[in-house]
């Protein structure tokens, strides 16, 4: 059978297919069709068919796309209403009222996704333990439903206070609204999140409702089109938690698809780590406008417990309580523009030349010097072979652009290009440290996996500065998110707010709660009681008095002593200290459930025809620090010998990327085709 993944990005739709019988690999890249992404997906399948892929043999399809995130960023979701507890209609608009842009005295809070006249109140009230203070007045819904019909509402979210611990009122209201509004999508907050904080949960349910009809229509179009092409297999959507879900599951919680592309890369990095026997992976993807980094611990992507959309240092953004892999994104990619700022410092990013006009060397009218121009100026890229020869580069334009910063810096174009890369690298290192050191981990313990079109050119340099154990360039680094989707397993995360001071009975009760969540997980996957599901149990725990805790593994045989010791250790790792006398509290439960399924196998490469002589395709001069122009041998990745140490400097070319191995580094290719770069000493 063939495993197929399609990753719809802003500019391109990538396809990667792997024939498990023959080992043959199919790749295709077509332009994304913004009006209906399914057309691009079909186009990519057609392109791969022309290369010999038989759609009828596709036995697994994973799909990552930007339909959900686009509907949100372009505000093209459906007309949505919100029903809340009486007295709390404005929660969604008030948000948290914070002003992170401290000195902007014309600050604007994010606009709510539901305007005030579509926010309605219902009489009902629960207390913090879930007890009923005011019974639900179902009759209040009659007028609300009439107003929704009048206003042409297509989706309704429901947010009642404390529904995270008792969803009964939300459930009853949702059922009543479904009857009153049969053609309207109804979504209650507890179905998406069982965590407390009413604004965050209301925003989650409002945004989920806002995109739900969009994704339902999109998936039904895509399914019909795939069926027409003869693709008859289970369809999966890539989720933000690093796992996949069926289309039907994804339609219930479309917000879980917000970061599906980056999550695909993270899933791929975890797979590469397990292939190398490395449980801890530091992953960096360098794209056109941003770089994204993420840490994988014990083979599992970390989740961000406070994910916000459209968030920045100066914008509060929109918090959503769905499991999203913990990714730190910075404005440093191939298109990032270098400038001398008013204070005389050289800056790179966050402004980007994007794909239009793109870096100066693309010859599409861009004049500003970018990271790609700097790499071309120092000779890393072959101008004729960039992106498999599809984007011819103009070295003259790149040098000309770099000269714009070289002049004021008093540097030669080569030295200025290196300076641009120095600043870009420093920005990336700060972000990489944010995901490691600031989260209590040492980058030297992790394998450093680098992907993205620009990643391999900078990876070995970054790895050296991070003192990473080794830098890893995975297969297909330029379309690695799609590859990663083939490595992802069906996964669901169940997180609930749940309180107890730590003692033996609390641990026993927590285990009983986990049994309930386990049963939900079994039902979620729908493969019966004996399905091979692996469960990872952890709890949010903290010292009494703290607000923020740490996520700490809990084991069925834990006693207070064994759990507390593990918690102290995790706390020290995260925050540098432990408080031995302080009581410990549990504040939340987290069950991670993964269905054990086959994923892409990393086949052994065929050594036939490979070797240093075969892979060597020429020489190119590269401007290296302290050495100036230095002749580097260029190799073709597809023909590299297995397990043969190759000293740098070296250039390794492949259709989607070029790897620059520095002097005093050694490159080795594993028998599964992964490039490892280590320091020589």
């Amino acid at each position, binding site marked *: 059978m063939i495993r197929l993944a399609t990753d719809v990005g802003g500019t391109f739709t990538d396809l990667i297919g792997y024939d498990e019988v023959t080992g043959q690999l199919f790749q295709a890249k077509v332009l994304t069709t913004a009006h209906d992404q399914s057309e691009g997906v079909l186009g990519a399948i057609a392109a791969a068919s022309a290369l010999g892929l038989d759609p009828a043999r596709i036995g697994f399809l994973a799909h990552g796309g930007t339909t959900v995130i686009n509907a949100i960023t372009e505000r093209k979701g459906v007309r949505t209403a919100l029903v809340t507890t009486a007295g709390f209609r404005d929660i969604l608009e008030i948000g948290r009222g914070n*002003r992170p842009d401290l000195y902007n005295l014309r600050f604007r809070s994010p606009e709510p996704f539901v305007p005030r006249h579509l926010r309605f109140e219902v009489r009902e009230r629960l207390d913090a333990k879930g007890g009923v203070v005011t019974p639900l007045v179902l009759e209040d819904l009659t007028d609300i439903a009439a107003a929704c019909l009048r206003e042409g509402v297509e989706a309704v979210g429901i947010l009642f206070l404390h529904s*995270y611990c008792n969803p009964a009122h939300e459930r009853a209201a949702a059922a009543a609204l479904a009857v009153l509004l049969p053609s309207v999508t109804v979504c209650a907050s507890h179905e998406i999140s069982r965590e407390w*904080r009413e604004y965050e949960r209301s925003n989650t349910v409002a945004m989920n409702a806002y995109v739900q009809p969009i994704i339902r229509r999109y998936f039904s179009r895509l399914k019909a089109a795939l069926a027409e092409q003869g693709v008859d297999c289970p369809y999966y959507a890539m989720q933000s938690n690093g796992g996949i879900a069926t289309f039907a599951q994804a339609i219930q919680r479309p917000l879980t698809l917000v970061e599906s592309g980056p999550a695909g890369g993270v899933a791929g990095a975890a797979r590469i780590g397990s292939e190398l026997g490395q449980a801890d992976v530091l992953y960096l993807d360098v794209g056109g406008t941003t770089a994204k980094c993420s840490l994988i611990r014990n083979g599992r992507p970390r989740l961000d417990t406070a994910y916000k959309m459209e968030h920045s240092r100066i914008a509060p953004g929109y918090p959503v309580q769905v499991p999203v892999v913990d990714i730190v994104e910075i404005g440093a990619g191939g298109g990032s523009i270098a400038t001398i700022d008013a204070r005389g410092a*050289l800056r790179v990013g966050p402004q980007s030349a994007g794909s239009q006009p793109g870096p100066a060397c693309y010859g599409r009218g861009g004049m500003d010097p970018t990271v790609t121009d700097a790499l071309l100026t120092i000779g890393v890229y072959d101008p004729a072979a960039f992106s498999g020869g599809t984007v011819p580069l103009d070295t003259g334009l790149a040098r000309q652009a770099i000269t714009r910063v070289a002049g004021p810096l008093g540097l030669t174009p080569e030295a200025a290009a290196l300076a641009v890369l120095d600043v870009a690298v420093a920005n990336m290192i700060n972000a990489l440290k944010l995901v490691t050191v600031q989260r209590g981990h040492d980058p030297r313990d992790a394998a450093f996996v680098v992907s993205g079109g620009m990643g391999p050119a900078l990876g070995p340099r970054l790895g050296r500065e991070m003192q990473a154990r080794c830098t890893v360039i995975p297969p297909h680094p330029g379309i690695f998110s799609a590859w990663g989707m083939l490595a992802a397993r069906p996964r669901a995360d169940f997180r609930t707010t749940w*309180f107890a001071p730590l003692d033996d009975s609390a641990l026993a009760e927590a285990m009983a709660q986990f049994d309930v969540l386990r049963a939900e997980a079994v039902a979620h996957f729908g493969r019966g009681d004996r399905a091979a599901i692996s469960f990872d149990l952890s709890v949010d725990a903290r010292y009494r008095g703290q607000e923020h805790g740490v996520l700490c593994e809990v084991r069925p045989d834990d006693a207070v002593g064994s759990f507390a010791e593990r918690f102290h250790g995790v706390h020290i790792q995260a925050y540098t200290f432990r408080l031995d006398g*302080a009581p410990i509290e549990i504040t939340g439960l987290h069950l991670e459930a993964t269905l054990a399924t086959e994923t892409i196998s990393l086949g052994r490469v065929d050594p036939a025809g490979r070797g240093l002589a075969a892979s060597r395709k020429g020489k190119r001069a590269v401007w290296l620090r302290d050495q100036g122009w230095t002749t580097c041998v260029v190799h073709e990745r597809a023909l590299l010998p297995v397990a043969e140490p190759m000293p740098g400097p070296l250039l390794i070319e492949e259709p989607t990327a070029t790897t620059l191995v520095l002097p005093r580094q050694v490159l080795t290719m594993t028998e599964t085709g992964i490039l490892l770069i280590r320091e020589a000493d």
Partner: protein
Amino acid sequence: MATDPVTQEIIEGKLIATVDEMGIVMAKTSMSPVIYEVLDFACGILTPKGDLVAQMNGITLFTGTFGAQVKSLLRQFDGRIEPGDILLTNDPYAGGTHACDFAIVRPVFIDGSLTAIAINVAHYLDVGGAVPGSVPPNATSVFQEGLRLPGLKIVRGERLNEELIHIIRENVRLPDIAMGDLNAQIATVRIAEARIAEIVAKYGAATLSAAFHHILDSSERLARAAILALPDGDYTAHDVIDGDGVSDVAIVLTVTLRVLGDRLEADFTGCPPATDGPINCARGALQSAVKTVFKALVAPQAPSNDGWFRPLTVIAPDDTIFTARKPKPTGWYYEGSVHASELVWQALAALRPDRFSAGSYASLCATYISGTGMDGLPFIHVEPQHGGWGASADWDGTAGLIALTDGDTYNYSVEVIEAKFPLRVTRYGLNIEGGVGAGEYRGGYGLVREYAVLAPGCVVHASFGRTLTLPWGMAGGGPGSANAMERVLPDGRIESRGRFTGLQLDPGDRVRLVTGGGGGWGDPARRDPAAIQRDLRDGVLTAERAAREYPQAPTRDRP
């Protein structure tokens, strides 16, 4: 020596990453909601002489306070600072704010020489004194405002001074929380030291020092250019503080701003003497208040450092409401200092409409509710109130936003409050009854937060400003509406208060915390009728009010 622009950028990036890291660790490990929810703390790195070069701010109250505070410690210890020391001060009269704010200062020695100074200032939930939370709204002396520790070595030779710890533990109401915060603060300055050592190891101490100078000098240059672009002249503004907590007498304020080429003078001469009540601020907090608005003027988004403030001179005689000295109380200093900010803001707004909005609800309206929780343990719930901001020259004001003195400050989640404290929130929504300043662009709405008390013997104290003097409108826009702390009596009558202490509440009692709407900008007659329609449809504007404030509003006869 000078740094090259590349190394400069890289070192600046590392300094910012370092103060950010300090902030993350502080917010995540603190046990005090004032810190983890309100982010009432700040972290910074200074030169060995005490000039700030990098700062992480959760709020604006600490803008530019670090320099004065550290310089005062350097003077006090005059060469007697050793490697392995960590200093502590909370002295309001030596560059500080109020006794609740503990500054932890780590002189960073590398190879035996003082290379930088790391600081963390955090608001402690309680430091003793007359009332829980240590800030009685009717204090008349600093001695009612808790333990003062003006400049001492809390760590000597890397060893915690156990005697001082004992004094602190015995003089505060919630010693475990205080110790948790002290631990967190010390952890953050040690992190800063480690990161500075990494920079020095890579680039050398001389390069780091040159980078410090470049940060300060280049910021100064840009600030001067921004001032030079303003027309020279005197700009004045007036305002009123509604009572000091002891008396309700109006406190009339004035400022004259002088734009003198590339310098700016803010002259508070003519402001009244320090009051009996605790809304005074000392000179350090006045500086900070003016610097906050100055930063908004010259470079709102750039990282903060002392270079920006070199073209600024603040003039004020001693012993005024903005320059109080011992023993005048300063517990609610930000209720006074915010007016120093607003005076400067008001004087500048017409000069730079692209930088400033009209007047806001201004007062943090900080509310303390204390008592005994369901677990039998004492609790203190402290929360600032969010309110309406003024309109700008091109858009409506923002609703329910935190006051100028705070910043990345979250409102308290209703679900979290109800799980922790014997309180029930019965309403949290826009203050439509109070309304907003009308204008071509209208002000943003304030909020109403109503609590029912569930346990006997709860005590509330609060200090609500702008209860009479309304947020100012601009360019013909109307004034906003007032803040009020209201007690709803069992018979439905409402008692309205501003600054008060020791209000006893029992089950069945309700308090309503009301914040005002912001001022409008521009003539209301010029407001887009579609915007009026939208406000009517959203139910934030009543037809009666629309008819009163907007001549172009649709009447019922002409729908």
